[in-house]
């Protein structure tokens, strides 16, 4: 038990369980199933982009991808445009989304590497360009996703939402890559001490490039799923996910100083972020109160996690 509590990811799961209990107590338990279902559905998108952001943040201070919202919008828009609501084109759409992810990731890293821009500024400037491309190709059209894909995105298997299953599968892939592959060791080593890793023979620039491409590919997949889930791409569909992606990474127990990532924590935090909002909603809190409390809870968790770290 002691061992479980001391794990950094336990905090986000504990917090998620607590908010779940409080919220479902309000409805005498009858709404618990529906609440869990909604949390899994909406948490999946936050978890997928959070996984990508986590990989980049693991690279160390200053590494963060601010282009996630724009990449999500661009991939959702282009994928739906390519599919044009025709049945049987789901894989084509996914291919377009992955290509968008590869392209934007490569562009981001090119700015960081070739122009030596700080990643925050590089991804920010690039995201403005991506946003423009999305606006230009969207032109206010709302193309519906193919019926089969929409059914998949909003459907369930054995009572679990399909998007959550996709998110879970991606989390397992990322976990294996981080914990059981050489690449994962390289990533952690680069995040802990870039110079030492380079001297030890780690191809640090390749590792950084792969991290920046992975984050945009995951954001693209999230954008593709979100657009299919909500019946079309909207230009503002990604905007909530910038702060969300950073918040779930940090609440999930990944060190913002880099060199330490935490896959299960990201999922716990993603569920928690959704549950907090629905808890405050079910207590009838207005939008203002809801935001203030969300912010205070984020800070509270960061403080709690840090004092625990200090005591160890």
């Amino acid at each position, binding site marked *: 038990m002691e061992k479980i509590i001391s794990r950094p990811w336990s905090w986000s799961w504990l917090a998620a369980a607590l908010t779940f209990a409080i919220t479902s107590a309000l409805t005498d338990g009858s709404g618990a199933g529906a609440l869990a279902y909604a949390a899994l559905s909406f948490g999946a998108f936050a978890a997928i982009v959070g996984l990508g952001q986590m990989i980049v943040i693991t690279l160390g201070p*200053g590494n963060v991808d601010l282009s996630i919202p724009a990449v999500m919008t661009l991939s959702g828009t282009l994928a739906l445009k390519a599919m044009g609501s025709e049945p049987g084109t789901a894989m084509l759409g996914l291919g377009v989304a992955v290509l968008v992810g590869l392209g934007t990731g490569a562009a981001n890293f090119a*700015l960081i590497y070739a122009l030596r821009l700080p990643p925050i500024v590089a991804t920010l*400037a690039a995201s403005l360009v991506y946003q423009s491309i999305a606006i230009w190709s969207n032109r206010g059209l709302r193309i519906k996703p193919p019926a089969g894909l929409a059914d998949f995105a909003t459907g369930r298997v054995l009572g679990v939402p399909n998007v959550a299953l996709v998110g879970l599968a991606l989390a397992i892939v990322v976990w294996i890559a981080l914990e059981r592959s050489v690449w994962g060791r390289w990533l952690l080593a680069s995040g802990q001490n870039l110079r030492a890793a380079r001297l030890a023979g780690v191809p640090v620039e390749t590792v950084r490039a792969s991290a920046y491409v992975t984050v945009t590919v995951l954001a693209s997949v999230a954008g593709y799923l979100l657009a299919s889930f909500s019946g079309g791409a909207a230009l503002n569909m990604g905007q909530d996910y910038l702060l969300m992606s950073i918040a779930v990474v940090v609440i999930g127990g990944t060190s913002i100083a880099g060199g330490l990532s935490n896959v299960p924590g990201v999922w716990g935090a993603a569920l928690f972020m959704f549950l907090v909002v629905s808890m405050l909603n079910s207590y009838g809190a207005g939008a203002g109160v809801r935001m203030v409390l969300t912010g205070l809870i984020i800070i509270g968790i960061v403080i709690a996690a840090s004092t625990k770290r200090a005591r160890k």
Partner: protein
Amino acid sequence: MGQFLSRHRILLPVFSLAVLLAATFYMQPRAMSYFGINLLFNLAVPIALATVAQMMIMMVNDIDLSLGTFVSLVACVTATFLNDSPLLGVLILAALILTYAGMGAVIHALDLPAIVVTLGMSFVWGGLALFVLPSPGGTSPGWLRALMTVKPPLMPMAVVASILIALVTHFLIIRSGIGTVLRGVGGNARSVARAGWSVVRLKALAYGLSGLFGVLSGMALVGLTTSADANIALRYTLLSIAGVILGGGEFIGGKVSPVGAVIGALTLALAASFLSFMRLSPDWQIGAQGAILILVLTARLIFARRENATG
């Protein structure tokens, strides 16, 4: 050449602004007048103040992701409380500055990541702003409106104000003793502590200064727009970070330039005006701003190369 440039980093932002200004005047010669320049830089004053606020935080190696929501909140308070009951308004604004200082102290004392704390605070400020002003509205206090639209001789208000902001912050941060110590916190906090300074207090001071300039930014914004809403300045977070970097500042090491930051903010404000003169399709306006940002930052290469070679 490279060495000369790396010693005079301020030349890059000055040069970028000059090129952009020349291009704007070429596109639209009529902008080359008192009235034209006033229009071009109209919204530059609040952006410049926000950039200086962000610079105060980046000076001590942190980053503030809540600045845009904070300026929005200040704008909402200015357009409501400060107009209706000035005393209460002043008290609220003072409390906000103190909160900022407290935030800096807590971040340092508990060794919290600033990026996350300010992220959390951005929700708090945003929520409070919605609370103060649920729907767009409010009125700018008359004196503030008069101050922001005053027409000084020779130079438009925006230019005069920018020069004033640059001078005041230059003396505060670069020339004064306390400013040097503050930059030292960004350079090497431990040696500042060894020298007998309380780093907690210094961080609180840096954040407090940031809060002060954030408040001034929000007030200036309301003076220009005459009303406020809870989302009025959200883009200032990113604009201010870009402005500091454009002005030659760095994310770490206490390397900041107040004059550069103000010029960086002017460049960003001008980029928006320039693009509207180019009659670019609205679809590409945002993207072109990103492209300009990338272009200007590419020029930093000349500077960075030299430093890497020597360091």
